[in-house]
C-alpha cells in the first residue's frame, strides 16, 4: 500500500488531485489522508483525518509514503524506515503561509530514504520507481548532541532549584 498524506492543518488539493490521477497507473493500493481539502479522490481510498495511532499503523503497513513536506511525517518515515517522497506546499499558491516547505525539501534532499518532487512529472517518475528502504540508522549524533545540551541545562537548573521541579514539552 502507498500512503499519501497532507497533514491535518491545511488543505492540499493540488497534490491530492495529482496523486488521484496517478493512482490507477500504480500496481499497489493507494490510501490518502486528505485533511481539510475539498477534492474527493475517486481512484484511491481516502479519509480526511486519521488519528496518530491509526496513522502510525498505516505507516507500518505501507511500502512508501508520498507526503507534503511536514515534519511529523518525516519523523515517522525515518522511525519506520520507509521510503519517503516529499511534495512541498507552495506559498505562492496559498498552500501554506510561506515557502518553508520548499526550504525543508532543499535542506533534506539527499538524506537516506528521502526523495523530492516539485511537479506532476517528477512525482509520477518517483512514485512508480523502485525505492529501497533506507538503511537502519544506528546512531544520530546530532540528535544525541541536542538531547545532551537540553539534559545538561535542565540538570543545572535542577540543582539550582533543589530537585523538585516540573517541565512542559
Amino acid at each position: 500500500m502507498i500512503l499519501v498524506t497532507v497533514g491535518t492543518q491545511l488543505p492540499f488539493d493540488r497534490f491530492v488531485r495529482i496523486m488521484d490521477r496517478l493512482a490507477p497507473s500504480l500496481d499497489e493500493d493507494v490510501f490518502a489522508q486528505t485533511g481539510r481539502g475539498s477534492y474527493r479522490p475517486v481512484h484511491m481510498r481516502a479519509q480526511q483525518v486519521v488519528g496518530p495511532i491509526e496513522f502510525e499503523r498505516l505507516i507500518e503497513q505501507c511500502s512508501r509514503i508520498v507526503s507534503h513536506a511536514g515534519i511529523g511525517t518525516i519523523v515517522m518515515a525515518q522511525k519506520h524506515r520507509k521510503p519517503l517522497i516529499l511534495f512541498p506546499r507552495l506559498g505562492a499558491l496559498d498552500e501554506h503561509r510561506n515557502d518553508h516547505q520548499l526550504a525543508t525539501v532543499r535542506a533534506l534532499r539527499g538524506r537516506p530514504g528521502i526523495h523530492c518532487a516539485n511537479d506532476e512529472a517528477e512525482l509520477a517518475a518517483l512514485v512508480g520507481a523502485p525505492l529501497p528502504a533506507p538503511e537502519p540508522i544506528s546512531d544520530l549524533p546530532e540528535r544525541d548532541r541536542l538531547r545532551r545540551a537540553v539534559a545538561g541545562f535542565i540538570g543545572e537548573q535542577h540543582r539550582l532549584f533543589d530537585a523538585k521541579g516540573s517541565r512542559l514539552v
Partner: protein
Amino acid sequence: MLLRPALPGDHVIFATTNHELAMRDGVVGVHLLPDANRDEPRRALAALLASVRLVWRLRPHVVVTTGALPGLFCLIVGRLLGARTVWIDSIAASDRPSLSGALARPFATRWYTQWQHLQSPGRAYEGALL
C-alpha cells in the same frame, strides 16, 4: 517526544494539543491545550488562557518547548513566573527562524536552532532531532 530521553522522567509534566499523540507514545497524566495558530484569533485566545491557567497552576522550574503557538504561550508565562525556559525552534524553520521562535527569544533562557547555518549570537546550534 524525540527529546524525551533528555528529560528527567520523574519530574516531567507534558502538555500537548492532541491527547491521542500522548496515548500513542505512552505518556500518562498529560495536560491538554487547545491547538491554535495566528490565523485563528479566537482559538489563539483560548490557547493563551489555557496556557496561563496551566503554567500558573504547575509553577514549573523549567519550560521546554518546540512551539508552536501554545508552546510559545507556556514559555512566556513560565518565564514571567520565574521559570528557566528552553525554546527549540522547529526543524521546519530551515531558511530562517520561525515567527513564534522570534517572539520567544526575549523570554527564552536558551534558544536553539536545529540548523547550523542559522546559528548566531543568541541562537545556539547544539544538534538537531531529525
